[in-house]
């Protein structure tokens, strides 16, 4: 009986660990605190710490999902040279939602100051004053970072599950 219960448990844990596998890892996160109209925002400037920058995540709001304006996102160097450009529409923007802008990896992005600019004539869409940048790794790897961001909870949860397993392993429950 224990083996029968253990099998699916192992499959479940393996599946959870497999879901952590990712080719893209977080390079830089600038937490946002407010949504601002595009006209009031300034371009983001940051210096990636890894090569292969390939995804920028912006958080935007499209009230009532009504704005269908066009948007242009650019990544440029300190000298103004445009490295990447992504066009997208207000139709891609929820209220709010993460906008994932993926592009060909910038192989020499490490330690290179970059400027992120989003332009549009949209009258209503707002953008959060923060972003997340990801880089492409060479292969699949386990990203355990999500499990480490709330250590207090992980400890409490682990103790709860361990405690329940200890009770279960008590001989009085194996009859």
């Amino acid at each position, binding site marked *: 009986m224990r083996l029968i219960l253990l099998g699916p*448990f192992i499959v479940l844990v393996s599946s959870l660990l497999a*879901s952590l596998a*990712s080719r893209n890892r977080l390079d830089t996160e600038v937490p946002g605190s407010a949504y601002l109209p595009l006209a009031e925002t300034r371009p983001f400037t940051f210096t990636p710490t890894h090569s292969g920058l390939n995804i920028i995540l912006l958080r935007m709001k499209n009230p009532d999902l009504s704005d269908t304006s066009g948007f242009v996102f650019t990544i440029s160097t300190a000298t103004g040279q445009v490295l990447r450009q992504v066009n997208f529409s207000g139709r891609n923007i929820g209220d709010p939602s*993460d906008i994932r802008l993926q592009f060909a990896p910038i192989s020499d992005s490490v330690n290179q100051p970059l400027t992120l600019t989003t332009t549009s004539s949209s009258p209503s869409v707002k953008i959060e004053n923060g972003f997340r940048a990801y880089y492409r790794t060479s292969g699949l790897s386990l990203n355990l970072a999500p499990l480490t961001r709330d250590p207090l909870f*992980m400890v409490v949860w682990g103790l709860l599950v361990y405690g329940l397993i200890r009770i*279960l392993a008590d001989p009085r429950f194996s009859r």
Partner: protein
Amino acid sequence: MRNVKRPLLVAAVFYFFIAPFFFHPDIKIIYSLAGFLSQGVFNIYSYTAAHPIPAGSFVYPPLAYFVLGLLYPVINFLAGPGFASWLAMGNDAVDVAGIFRYLFLIKTPLILALLATGWTLSKISSRKEIPWIWFFNPLTIYAVGFMGQIDILPVMLTVLALVIAKPKPFLAALLLGLAAAFKTYPLLFLPFLALLSTTSLKRSALIFAAGIAPYLLFVAPFLATPAFYSDTLTSGLTQRVLQLALPLGYAENLYLVPVIMTMLFLVAGVLHRGQIHRLPSYFLAASLLPVVLSHFHPQWLLWSLPFIILRFEWLSLAVFFTSAMGTILLFPDKFLTWGLISPLNPQILFLPPFVNPLLQSLFHSVLVGVSLWISLCALFFSDRSSSS
């Protein structure tokens, strides 16, 4: 009482283990709206109509609002300062530091209700497999462990009503009315409880009234609110059951679900009047058939699941679960598939869902077939009582 400690504990380990890692936006939206009770909002329906918010409107009957609203301050305290902000974020807000804590806390009441339901089922039937099948079938794991749907709360009450229906039909009716104040579907059970509890017309009417009363007590303050009708009474199942229709011409349609429910009512009233031991069969059929004959939400299958499991037969169950999960996993909704695991890998939300309407329709057709078979067997082909 049969030894249910072991399956209960194994289930507790399993569900508390997985709770933090699976996410569906519904429970986040529900708690986001239930939180307004702490701000003094009594009529959530008129409030969201007057103050449109991204979370939308509250689509459940009032008792769901009040119960979750009372739980909200406790959960908010334990979750910490980021909880309210997270609730206000969009459906894909999984890449936040406290996501595991939030999911664990908002699912805990539901897991406890699940465990209570399993314990109650063990009091109904002497078969030792029943708690195991209840806790570890794919539908329960999916709807409660993964999605965190609140349907388990009225399900718990309907199973409790079944336990006490024979000795205390009026109390059972009261429980059904309370369950209906969470989600309306238990009202479908009331006529059958009334017909099968007694052969007296007067007593049947009183039992029915005893069930309707608590439901009306909770909805009465909101009957004058137009948004209450559009958000709850005319949404979800009530609309979808009328979509399976045969055109008769001249703008008239034959609605198949009301046809089947009428037949069920007459079978109960004419053939099985006063036979309370048949109540589980009617709870099964009345909650299963309207669901599978509609474009259902996955959690709706929870309603009939306890009663299906009470009459379980391995082949029927295997076909039922396979066809049900096949139908569900082919819904064109990322949050019903790999989106569930997004707390561990947020980028998975950007994968498109796998869509194949033909395959989904085939699975759904098999589901209807096995559901009809299970219902017919329960109603006509077995007089076996499952009470302990």
